Every structure is written in C-alpha cells, then in structure tokens.
C-alpha cells in the first residue's frame, strides 16, 4: 500500500463522526438508534482504499465507517441522514442503519444481520453477465457468518466464480454473543475451505494489512478467479447499541484492545508526532461541526410526502 495522510485523516473522520453521533444522541438531539464502529476504522478504510471507483459495496448496520470510507462519500450528507433530514443520503427515510450512496454504488447499510449476503451474489452475477471488471464487496459481522444466508451466498459465488469479496468484520461480539462461543473454529476464514475458495485472516486494526489483503482479493476477482473470504479481526469499543450494559465482557479486555487503537498505530507509520496529530484532529473536528450545522439547518421531510417512493 502507498501510505497517505488521507488514509489517516479518513480514519479520524470516521472516529470523529461517531463520537459526535454519540454526543448528539446523549444530548437528545437525535431520535432513533445507532451502532458505533469506534475501534474498527482500519478495516473500513483499508477496504475502501483497496477498491476501485465503480465497484459495489453492501455493508452492515454498523456501517458509518464503510460509507465514509467509500468513494465520493460526503460527511454532510451522512450527518443529515443520521439526523433524519431531507438533505441526507436517503432523504431522512433510512437513518443510521440504512445509509446508502447509490450514485457511488454503495448499495447500503443493512439492518438485518447477513441481509446483504444473498444480494451480493446477485451483484456478482450481474457484473459477470455484464462482462465488466467491477467487484462487489459485502461486509458482514461475525454474527452473520452463522446465518444460513452466508452459506447460500458463498456457495453460489463459489460455483459460478462470481467477483465478490466476502469481508467478515470480526469484532468479537454479535451483540452479547462472543464468537468463541458461537463458532467451533478459530478463524472464520477457515469456512472458505468448505466452498473451495481462498480464505484469509488479517489484523483488522492494521490499515495497510487490510488494504493489501483486499487489493489482492480484488485482483483475483477481476481476473475471473472467483470469490474470496476475508476475515478482519478487530474489536468494537462501544456497546452493541445505545442500551448495552456490556455485562458479557471485562473492562480489562476492552482496555487491552484500546491499546491496539488503529489510529495512533497508523500515525506512527506516517511518522506523525503528537502536535501534527492534534492539528489533524482539529481539522477533522471542524469538518464534523460543519456537517452538524449543515444537517441542523436542513429541513426535515414533509409529512405530506410520506408515501413518496414506496414504488418507482
């Protein structure tokens, strides 16, 4: 991977977006729920930087990072959607769990665990039928890999050699269920062998490592050699959603993973000192504040338009 300040900034933007989301929620300025990916930014940005414009993305309910890491993402439209405004990516109809940027082939976050997996096979089939060199990436969690949909989708992609990267973002917990309790194997990537495809496990907190694995997987897909299962091991710092008391894990475990924070880790690779990092943090913060201002000054959807868009 070619290292870049932009990659670091992108991770920090995701972090700042979610910290602001958390704050807005605590202050009662946002209605609804959200799922934060704080601590997992390297997986999202490693994925985004490895793909090409024109590729497709399907992601998860914990998807702020994936969307912000994808091509052409606009943090103002993200924030507006998060705050339920007409100017948001989905005109305030989707919210945090359903943010999509269809114009950039980001086919959306998904509120259903594993919900994007069957559709990803169709995206791959469509690419193959249209004979383009696009690739579809479907991001899902460790919980989703125990859904039947995972197996149906990977099987189909394997027999038809579809250009789909199955990126399992293993953040160790499906709500309160630990992956070590819900699966009898050490690495989710081992499941690839059951379908005769390549499976790779990567350190999901190492941006460059994620990037390189994803870039290699994308090259394999573009060469017509079929799907790849990538497992990025990372950790969710926050609770599942806003109501989580986190009784299923210890404080020590969380602190231990926080020592592996992907942001300072990558800033060291770039040779940043604390002063440069702080300057960048301020710059990102200003962008987030501008996004909040944009969102809060945007209109809410008209109730009279509630039935618009049910059918095309």
């Amino acid at each position, binding site marked *: 991977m070619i290292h870049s300040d932009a990659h670091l900034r992108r991770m920090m933007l995701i972090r700042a977006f979610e910290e602001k989301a958390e704050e807005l929620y605590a202050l009662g300025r946002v209605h609804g729920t959200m799922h934060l990916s704080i601590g997992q930014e390297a997986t999202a940005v490693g994925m985004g930087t490895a793909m090409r414009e024109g590729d497709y993305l399907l992601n998860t309910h914990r998807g702020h990072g994936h969307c912000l890491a994808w091509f052409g993402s606009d943090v103002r439209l993200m924030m507006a959607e998060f705050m339920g405004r007409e100017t948001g990516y989905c005109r305030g109809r989707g919210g945090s769990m359903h943010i999509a940027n269809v114009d950039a082939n980001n086919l959306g976050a998904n509120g259903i665990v594993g919900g994007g997996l069957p559709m990803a096979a169709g995206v791959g089939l469509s690419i193959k039928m249209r004979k383009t060199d696009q690739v*579809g990436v479907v991001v899902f969690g460790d919980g989703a890999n125990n859904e039947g*949909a995972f197996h149906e989708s990977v099987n189909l992609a394997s027999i038809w050699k579809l250009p789909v990267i199955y990126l399992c973002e293993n953040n160790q917990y499906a709500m309160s269920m630990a992956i070590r309790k819900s699966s009898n194997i050490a690495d989710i990537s081992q499941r690839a062998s059951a379908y005769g495809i390549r499976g790779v496990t990567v350190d999901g907190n190492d941006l460059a490592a994620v990037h390189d694995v994803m870039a290699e997987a994308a090259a394999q897909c573009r060469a017509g050699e079929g799907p790849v299962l990538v497992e990025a091991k990372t950790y969710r710092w926050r609770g599942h959603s806003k109501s989580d008391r986190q009784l299923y894990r210890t404080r020590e475990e969380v602190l231990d993973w926080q020592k592996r924070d992907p942001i300072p880790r990558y800033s060291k690779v770039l040779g940043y000192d604390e002063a440069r990092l702080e300057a960048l943090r301020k710059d990102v913060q200003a962008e987030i504040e501008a996004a909040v201002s944009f969102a809060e000054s945007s209109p809410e959807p008209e109730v009279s338009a509630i039935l618009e868009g*049910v059918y095309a």
Partner: protein
Amino acid sequence: MRELTYAEALREGLRQAMRADARVFVMGEDVGIYGGAFGVTNGMLEEFGAERIIDTPISEAVIAGACIGAALTGMRPVGEIQFMDFVTLSMEQLVLQAAKIRYMFGGKASVPMVLRMPGGSGTGAAAQHSESLENWFVNVPGLKVVMPSTPYDAKGLLLAAIDDPNPVIFIEHKLLYKTKGPVPEEAYRVPLSQSVVVRPGAHVTVVATSIMVPRALEAATTLAGEGIELEVVDPRTLAPLDAGPIIASARKTGKVLVVHEAPERGGFGGEVVACIAASEAFDFLEAPIRRLAGLDVPIPYNRNLERAAVPQVEDIVREARRLARGEY
C-alpha cells in the same frame, strides 16, 4: 385466435422479453435442462443458453437475493421459486430488502425484478406443496402481487411485470398450467393494477382470484340456466389493488361474494370486503357481503379432504344462489 396453454403463454412471454432485452434472464431450481418443475421454461435453455437460463442450487434465500442484487445493478431478473411454499425460505430478502430498498434509500434505487411461483392445491401434494400465501405479500408495501387466471393474462401480465421497475411477486396456479385460451402472438402487455369484469351480470358480483375465476365462470354458466346472472370480477393484481371496478360492480348488483383459495382468516377477501364496505357502494348493498375461501386448515392429502378444503364450483353456485335469492 390461436390458443395456448397457460404454461405456453408464460413461456412465450418469457421468450419475447428475453429476445427484446438482453438484461432479462431466468434463474431458479431446475429451470434449465429439466424445463422447470411444471415445464414453464421447457426448451428455453436451447434458445438462450445456460448464461441466461440459470439453474441454481436449492437455495431459495439466495435465489431471491441474487435477483435483488442483479436488479439493483442493471439487470432484469425473472426468478422462479419451484413451489410457492418454498418462498417462506426467501421471505427476509423479499420483505426486508426488495420491498424496502427504494423507500429506505429515499427513492434513489429501484428493484426491477419478477419472482414467479406456482401456488395452490389440487395436485395431491399435501400440506407443504399446496400453499396460497399471496396475502402475506399483499400486506407488504413496496411489493406488487399479481395472480393471472387465464393464458391471455398470464402472458400479458408477465410482460408488464418484467417492464415494471418494482419487485413483482407473480403467482401462478398449478392447475391452470394446462388450461387453454386465446393468446395473441405479439408481445402485448396487460397493465398491472387493473381489475377487470370478465363476465357482466345483473344479480350477484363474484370477486374471484386465480383459479377461482374459471370456477366462478363455470358457476355463472350453471346459474344462468336458473335465471341468475353473475358478474365476475378478476382483480388480477392484488397489490396495489384497483378497487374501482369492484366497487362499481358491488354498487350495480348490491350483492357480493368474494372467492379465493387461501384460508379465509386474514385473507385477501377481507381486504376486498372492507374496500366495498367503506365505499359509496355501501348504501347500495342488499345483503351482507359473503366470503367463500379456503378452510382454516393445512391442505390435507386425501383427495376428498383436499377438495373439501378449498372452494369448488358447486360451492360458488350454492353461495351465489343463496345471495341471489335473498337468503342472507
């Protein structure tokens, strides 16, 4: 006019759609060399090849999901679920993804797909191969639900469904596949959401869906001999429903019988009854609106029990006659 069977009419519609548009393809279990469990895609593999007549593993969730993913990215998939019963395995993708994507993405995406499936009983296949689940889908905004009752409508509605930019659940009936009727050779369309009066009559309105339409017409012939004229209305598209012709007919006859194969409880008939009762036709009603539907029972195996579980011609004759004679 030339006559085709319902299955042949569907096949001709599929062929014409695929010849006209390279984005259209067929996908499902045993649709290729086998020709589909009910023969609808018979011979299509030879014309279009395995790239466009695609055999899938037995994976109903991913058949539905692959249709959605392909539809979102520029294709026009026509999926087949081998028996409607098996669509229970596709429900998450249809209800939570296909139906909602356009709305929850603020109208910025569309899912132009058709999912064909044979429903209904009468083949002795018992409880897990005889379901009529149409009303599950009627209750999901974002989906369209189509149930053709004739070869003519089968072809015309299928072509319209393939053109439609929304997900369409296209429900065929196993017992109708071999029925024959006039079918024009050209690629005509029967518009979605257009109910039709298939037989005019003065005394009783019968609103019937799918196989209950030919049964209602047969009942109408019998009752005509007694001087009772039935007006038979076929909604053809259950959702979004074109209630206008149903309400107009109820207003005209003042007596309404709603007939479908699916169980009565929570069925489509209740929706039709409510549409009429809430309309200007209410003041013209001369009798309670009656429903004749499947019994609230799993479809039994035994021939006599299976027959007794869903409305037959004689049941429609009996109910319509009682309505006409003012016995309700």
